[in-house]
């Protein structure tokens, strides 16, 4: 029920994002979703890709600091209130969202929400209890 996400440290200088995406493209790695967290001094790029191990290897060998973390992918209908219903479930369980991002799948019917919680197990239990659909890594990449 967990999805592996790649996080890459970004120094605050121009061109770094372009270099990362070019490195991934050159190695046939497909990005399914991404988000950038930026502060005044540095950034963190978070990616869901079709081949996590390979992505980690090629980025590391190109000098990037890379980490793999587990996140949760929740599938919701692409309609108003979709995200709100998930967050309500989270709030009810007294959980904190560390960060989240979202993308809409190709058919445009469903949206996928990527979440990172401080307490991942509790979050999975709460979401399943409320009937949400959690996707595996393969499922996310197959979308």
């Amino acid at each position: 029920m967990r999805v592996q996400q790649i996080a890459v440290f970004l120094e605050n200088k121009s061109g770094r994002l372009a270099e990362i995406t070019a490195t991934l493209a050159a190695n046939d790695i497909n990005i399914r979703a991404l988000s950038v967290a930026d502060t005044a001094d540095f950034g963190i790029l978070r990616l869901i890709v079709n081949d996590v191990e390979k992505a980690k290897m090629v980025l590391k060998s190109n000098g990037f600091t890379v980490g793999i973390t587990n996140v949760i992918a929740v599938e919701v209908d692409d309609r108003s209130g979709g995200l709100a219903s998930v967050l309500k479930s989270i709030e009810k369980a007294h959980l904190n969202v560390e960060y989240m991002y979202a993308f809409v799948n190709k058919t445009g019917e469903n949206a996928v929400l990527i979440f990172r919680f401080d307490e991942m197990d509790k979050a999975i239990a709460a979401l399943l209890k409320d009937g949400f659909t959690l996707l595996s890594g393969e499922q996310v990449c197959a979308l």
Partner: protein
Amino acid sequence: MTTLYWEEEIETLPRVGLESVQLTRLKHLVARVYATVAPYRAKMDAAGVKPADIKTLADLQKLPFTVKDDLRDNYPFGLFTVPMDQVVRVHASSGTTGKPTVVGYTKKDIETWSGVMARALTCAGATSRDMIHNAYGYGLFTGGLGAHYGVERLGATVIPVSGGNTKRQITIMQDFRSSVLLSTPSYALNLADAMAELGVDCKALALRVGIFGAEPWSENMRNEVERKLNIRAVDIYGLSEVMGPGVAMQCLETDRGMHIFEDHFLPEIIDPDTGEVLPPGEKGELVFTTLTKEAFPLIRYRTKDISRLIHEPCACGRTMVRMEKVTGRTDDMLIIRGVNVFPSQVEHVLMGTEGVEPHYQIVVNREGNLDTMAVRVEVSEALFSDEVKTLEKLTRKIQGDIKDMLGVTCKVQLVEPRTIQRSEGKAQRVIDNRKM
């Protein structure tokens, strides 16, 4: 204007008389140190020199040097020559690693220090009628209290305002009619800029002269301070190991060099590589022997400051030799906002932080009039997190540890791995972009 002296007789003593005073004091010092301090005795025995071998001032060269590491090895009080019940005060400055360098003073040492500081103030034209604004930091740093006691000895009024709170300082200058300013030169520029912003006309102040030290500053900076504050800016030199402020002081008659109060502090200029004493007037490392200090005397202490001695007589009538403004260091010590910083101290903090690799760089800039220090740290996999708060917590922790250890606020910049230059020999740990 007739020159005023604090102790005219000694300050204008012909060289031969001064040298006789120095020799008497040197013999006494060496005998006392040899008898009371084991580490000094051991070093002198190793060098095969006994107190009786000191017959002339030139014999000083037979004595071994004292270096900062000797101070560290005998931390905190190992080099004190008197029992602790005679020590009335301690001060401390940055050591090269975790531990500070500690110095001690007897009651008489404090009197000597206030005396040379009163001389220094007099060199700048200060008298008992002055209102002296002391913006040097009070505390373990010798600047604040050293100057303070000198002002009281002079009989002037001291305003112990210490550093910071610039607006309040300006109000005090206006309302108390401060006539002499003591601060770091960069803080003086800071004050000037703040006055301009507040619309305070410095010509309406009573300020006449500024005594600046504790950090390197250029002639350009002197001109800028003089112009912006409409004062005369003079230079003071001192270091805590030797005494504190008041080791040497510029007089109003010259812009070239500071008179070393040689009846207390005997200077030499050596070649930093060979340790040989250099011919008069040559540039080299400044070495001091304290002739009168009781609690913490130093024999041939290597300051690592680069200077030269000026032997030509000065128009002010003082016979004491002058030292040129310090132009550099023989080591990698940095002075950030008046605080001594060794890269090794920063390294010490980083190595104590889990996951931090020994690749770092210190970048020093002068923004406006303020020195800023940034420490660039490579983000290893062990440090990295996908969460911003974890990385920010890490930078805050390092900043806090550096502040605790060095007393300097810095900014920690996380950089990508292998972006800090590696070199086989000496890594370039410091990038100093300040124009001195």
